[in-house]
């Protein structure tokens, strides 16, 4: 929209009335992307794609969950062609609701098995690892546990900040349920809640609080400490990766999908292939500190190698009680009180 007089346009639209307004919408042949990744994290790639392919792109940015609700509400009328999700939960919701068009095998095959939906509804693009961020002034690295399950021990009571309302924490709890069963997952949640841990709204707020020393540690995705330290290199922050494929270092993938009913399916596939190509995968590795998912892409040397993190993949459909049970369990544990 750069250089366009949006406000003047808006006033013109308002005064010219409904008939003129149809013309204020986007063109038919432009690819409409709903992106749960914010502009900083995907915008440059989308611009490059538009330039290289000659395909015009319009992007609506919002939280992944809100965009999933929007696409569901819009139904068959949705203007969206491509949905980029920051979390497996949101894109899984749309897949289960039948709002996604299956991707061709050759696109899905670009990533390892398990990093895409079984029904080809979406394909993983990049990954973020769950981690324990800690304040190096307050915590000695040697005292940190080898498993996220040990955080219920007395010495960590009230020391670890959580974001129980946040999508990535919910996804992590879903993984726990899948791998350990609901009883053990509930026991872990209750163990954490028993220590009355400080809770925050999201990863950004936790990393900010750990950085200023209000809380010694916090369970977050690995990306945030990297970003916070490029804002302020003096911040006493480090990520602790639970070793040996512990569930505490589960990889949460961000996904790309084609929205059902898109009339630009070919262009949508081109974009997704571009996001899985060398240039984009290098961008995720170098610029956004994430794990690239395509075979052969190089992992950022600041991160633990790919084979040291948990390869847990959750089949959301098979999980007993469905995803609703995850938030119920978090509520029942008392973490939200």
């Amino acid at each position, binding site marked *: *929209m*750069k250089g366009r007089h*949006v*406000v003047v*346009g*808006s006033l013109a*639209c*308002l005064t010219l009335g*409904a008939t003129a*307004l149809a013309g*204020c*919408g*986007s063109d038919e042949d432009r690819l409409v992307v709903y992106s749960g990744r*914010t*502009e*900083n994290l995907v915008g440059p790639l989308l611009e490059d794609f538009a330039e290289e392919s000659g395909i015009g792109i*319009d*992007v*609506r*940015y*919002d*939280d992944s*969950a*809100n965009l*999933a*609700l*929007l696409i569901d*509400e819009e*139904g068959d*009328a949705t*203007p969206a062609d491509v949905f980029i999700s920051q979390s497996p*939960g949101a894109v899984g*919701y749309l897949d289960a609701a039948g709002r996604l068009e299956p991707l061709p095998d050759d696109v899905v095959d670009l990533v390892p098995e398990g990093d895409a939906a079984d029904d080809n509804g979406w394909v993983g693009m990049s990954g973020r690892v769950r981690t324990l961020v800690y304040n190096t002034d307050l915590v000695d690295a040697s005292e940190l546990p080898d498993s996220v399950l040990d955080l219920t021990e007395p010495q960590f009571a009230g020391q670890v900040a959580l974001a129980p*309302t946040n999508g990535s924490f*919910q996804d992590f709890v879903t993984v726990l349920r899948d791998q350990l069963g609901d009883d053990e997952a509930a026991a872990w949640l209750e163990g954490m809640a028993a220590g009355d841990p*400080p*809770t*925050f*709204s999201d990863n*950004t*707020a936790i*990393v*900010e*609080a750990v950085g*200023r020393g*209000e809380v010694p540690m916090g369970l977050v995705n690995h*990306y*945030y400490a990297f*970003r916070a330290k*490029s*804002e*302020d290199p003096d911040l006493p922050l480090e990520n602790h990766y639970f070793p040996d494929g512990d569930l505490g270092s589960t990889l949460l993938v961000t996904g790309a999908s084609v929205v059902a009913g898109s009339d630009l399916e070919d262009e949508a596939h081109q974009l997704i292939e571009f996001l899985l190509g060398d240039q984009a995968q290098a961008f995720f590795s170098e610029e956004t500190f994430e794990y690239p998912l395509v075979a052969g892409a190089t992992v950022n040397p600041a991160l633990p190698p790919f084979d040291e993190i948990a390869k847990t993949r959750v089949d959301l459909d098979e999980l007993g009680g469905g*995803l*609703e049970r995850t*938030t*119920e369990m*978090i*509520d029942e544990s008392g973490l*939200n*009180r």
Partner: protein
Amino acid sequence: MPAPVALRVVCAAVGLLFAAPLGYLAWRSFTGDESLGELFTSDATLVPLRNTLVLATVTAASTAVVGTALAWLTTRTDLPLRRLWAVLAALPLVFPSFVGALALLAAVAPGGLLDGPLGWVGVTPSRPEGFAGAWMVLTLFTAPYVLLPVSARLLALPPSLEESARLLGRRPVAVFATVVWPQIRGAVGAGSLLVFLYALSDFGVVVLLRYDTLTRVIYTNRVLDRDRAVALSLLLALLALAVVAGERSLARRRPAVEAAGARRPLQVPLGRWRWPALALVVGWVAVALGGPLASLGLWAWRGLTGETSSLAAGGAGLGDLVEPAVNTVGIGLVTAVVAVAVLLPLAYLSARYRARSGDVATGLVATGFALPGLVVALAVVFWSVQLPEAWGLYQSFVMLVFAYVVHLGVQSLRAAQVAVGSVPRRLDESARMLGAGRTRRFVTIDLPLMLPGLAAGGGLVLLSTMKELPITLLTAPIGFETLATRIWADAEAVFLAEAALASIVLVALSGVLTWLVVVRRSDRLA
């Protein structure tokens, strides 16, 4: 006197438009799987519901006290620099709640900016949280909902009554209690009702300060258990409808207060209370506005000077904020004008003719503000899909402004009701007997008397629109960026320097607009 039929028809249409969220939620609830009776009576609902009600009620009461005090001090006394404080005290309203609360925490929480200075005087800060934390932070950010309408009312009040009371030797406090309070009670009630509704809908503050309310449950479940989120939103809307309709019928029983037409502002000398009063106002502004601004300033400074930050490395700077800033102001002004114009007929119906149907319509308008913006946005999307006539406007500016007005319109309505109610009927009647037509009476008598109140209501809508996020993100024309959407995107990805810079620009612009639209205008009119 019965209301004209045309007015009733217009108001019914307005009420219908504002029923969009309620209708959407009712439809989704009754076609969903959730058993409403079971859900509404379970502890998982009742505990957050009680928390919500307690928080909203207590915050409404505390802002009534603070907002009224600030309004009186900045409009009616010889407080030094009172016009400056009048603008600054209104500004905490413009912090989008997630970034305002985050920045305030970064200032006052342990390890924050104030930790050092407080440590020197032997105070260890503790993190504000739970009920007390949410209440304090909400009070700091929402007091302007009372401040602006009450200031407008005070400025429209003829000074003669107060002058007589003072000449009779009454002290300022006694003058306030016996003369001023009965005249501004309506405005205080209107403002604190807005705070009550805002507290029902707020998510950013309660979740960061860890207080379990209905909106927390709605947000947490919005994707994973959608039927529950919808049913609880319906509960929130019904709650608002009941509270507001109830408040309106109470207001109808009160005698009408009609006094307006101040020619010049009256100044009460504070005497030896002048400096303590100043300290109070400065202290309030320092915490509510200065606290978050200090953190934002630090983040921006760090970004501008740090070597590794994207801001210093040629990232988004001030230049990139010009377009979002123009968009923000433009859409805010349009929304404010539309909201005032659309809701003025309803203000007449309920405040002048005191029609019962007006109470119901007012309740419907209030539901839009008691619901999280996300729910209002989805409701507008739902109706756009259902109604072929509306689909042509999908994701257009008309739809965006419509969604804003449905969500925020009650702010201008409540101020307008106070303004309409304070126009003395005898002026209108005299003019009618002299043969002035309805339009002429409106333009020459009502409008000038109501302008400070209408400007205050429009000002609230303006400031709220400028910081609005969920509706903008979901329903704006694609590519339309405002300062709030920038702040959200940057904060979400931990580009704190960029987020801080955009927030500071938002506050500065809001300050200028508050001055131009609300404070200066009402001063001149008064």
